[in-house]
């Protein structure tokens, strides 16, 4: 079952074409990797899916409960409400909020009670808040940050910040999760744990995962399908083995002999 369909999306910044006729179909339950040299336009692809940039050309369709939703040009908050959530390459946690509040606020987009019931702490609000709190605590337990729940997010070490960002994204109840370099800055041991973690949340939360990664170990290890981007153009697509032996990919990474 196809979840997300990207049709010939092009993003231009003035004269620069960051992404050129990008095509992708994400099937439910798969983990797809996006790789490519620095500046290839990988993060731009994420930004255009999540609504940070509007595509110059092309169309993005999100399929939810068998109904097709055209999400091209929607605002980022509308897109995450529909069920596509992301993490950031250069970690964007809410630094002044506590670890728990960071995850808690991920639930906020599904809140039904209004601001007045929140101020007056009416039963309909407190019930929701309690659910949000319990879900957040569960997610923190899943990423192993229960002990740090009252610490400020900025005081966490790098690896934990990455995990917190994933927990925060999971709090929004996504059906598609976009991970932008989740293993960046992690040591080999942490990287291994992360791989296991990604596979386990995929099954538990019924996710479809699309990730950008430079660690080849991660990409080759957990992705069934890999796309390679170079200068905004998709140059190869296939299984890890096919990608490893593709001369175009080798050329893009190592240059021409």
């Amino acid at each position, binding site marked *: 079952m196809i979840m997300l369909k990207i049709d010939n999306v092009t993003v231009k910044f003035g004269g620069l074409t960051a992404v050129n006729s990008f095509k992708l179909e994400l099937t439910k339950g798969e983990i797809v990797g996006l790789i490519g040299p620095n500046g290839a336009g990988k993060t731009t692809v994420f930004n255009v899916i999540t609504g940070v940039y509007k595509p110059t050309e092309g169309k993005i369709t999100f399929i939810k409960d068998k109904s097709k939703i055209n999400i091209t040009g929607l605002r*980022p908050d509308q897109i*995450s409400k529909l069920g596509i959530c992301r993490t950031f390459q250069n970690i*964007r946690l*809410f630094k*002044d909020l506590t670890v728990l509040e960071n995850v808690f*606020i991920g639930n906020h987009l599904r809140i039904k009670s209004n*601001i007045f019931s929140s*101020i007056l702490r009416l039963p309909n609000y407190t019930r929701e808040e309690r659910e949000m709190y319990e879900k957040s605590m569960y997610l923190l337990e899943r990423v192993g940050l229960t002990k740090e729940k009252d610490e400020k997010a900025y005081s966490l070490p790098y690896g934990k910040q990455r995990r917190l960002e994933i927990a925060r994204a999971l709090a929004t109840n996504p059906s598609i999760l976009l991970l932008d370099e989740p293993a960046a800055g992690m040591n080999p041991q942490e990287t291994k744990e992360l791989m296991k973690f990604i596979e386990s949340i995929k099954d538990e939360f019924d996710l479809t995962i699309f990730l950008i990664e430079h660690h080849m170990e991660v990409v080759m290890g957990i992705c069934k399908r890999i796309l390679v981007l170079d200068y905004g153009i998709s140059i190869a697509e296939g299984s890890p083995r096919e990608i490893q032996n593709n001369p175009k990919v080798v050329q893009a990474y190592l240059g021409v002999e």
Partner: protein
Amino acid sequence: MKYKKKYKKKSNSILYICIFLVILYILNKTLDPYKLRILNLCGIYVVLGLSLNLINGFTGLFSLGHAGFMAIGAYTTALLTMPPAMKEMNFFMQPIVPFLANVEWSFLPALLMGGLVSAIMGFLIGAPVLKLTDDYLAIATLGFAEIIRVVFTNLQSITNGALGLKGIPATTNVWWSWGMAILTILLLKYLMKGSYGIAFKSIKDDEIAAQAMGINLFKHKIMSFTIGSFLAGIGGGLLGNLLGTIDPNMFRFPLTFNILLIVVLGGLGSIKGTTVAAVIITIMMEALRFLDESINLGFISFEGIPGMRMVVFSVLLMAVVIFRKEGLLKES
């Protein structure tokens, strides 16, 4: 259950409020009228400081239009509470518009109406202006406050123009001013503890991340701005009915500056800080009046310069911004 622990302090705060009310009762009986007036002003500045802190400190919207919202609140409340005979005396240049000529509401509904009108204006202004960020927002809101002042100066048949309003019933007493102050403190406390309050803070922290987490930036900004304007209107209404006389020139930029001073000194995003700073600064504004007068130290004497005391605040503000950006009182 750990979740419940968060709200166990409730009974404690009720106790504090009771103790405070007793102190207020004693002060109300013992202070002379001049000191009582300062006490009233303290309460009003708590309301105003917190309302600006909600917008600037918690949500991170750099708004400088507070004086405008206060003017709206002050005029609405004043016009609704003034007895018809007094209105007739005030409006000798041009008669007051008929629909306002004979209304005389009691204070509470008039005050709430003042807040409401101010909130509606906040909503209408916010809609176009909150798309801007940082300095642009500051300039736009500042311009709005000036527009309000100029409009009020020229609406002769509604606001009595530059002559202002005199003989507004002096209803505001310590119970009104501090009652509203306590309500505002509680409102902000519960707002910021809840999901919406945390959403405001997250917007201040990182707009892009907040939006990626599904928070509708515009909707939340306008909620914060409207509540802030409502409270500013209430503060303005209290102020008008304390002073007994208002005119458009009262609501110039320096008034916004005073409130901004309270917010920055107390700490952006700190309820406790703003409350304490509001009291201290309001008292200091009066206590430092001797600096405006000529000073004779025996061997040397200075001539009085009006406004000297503001230099103290400016120096204090600079020191805080340089050495303690989080404000004097902000907890960790």
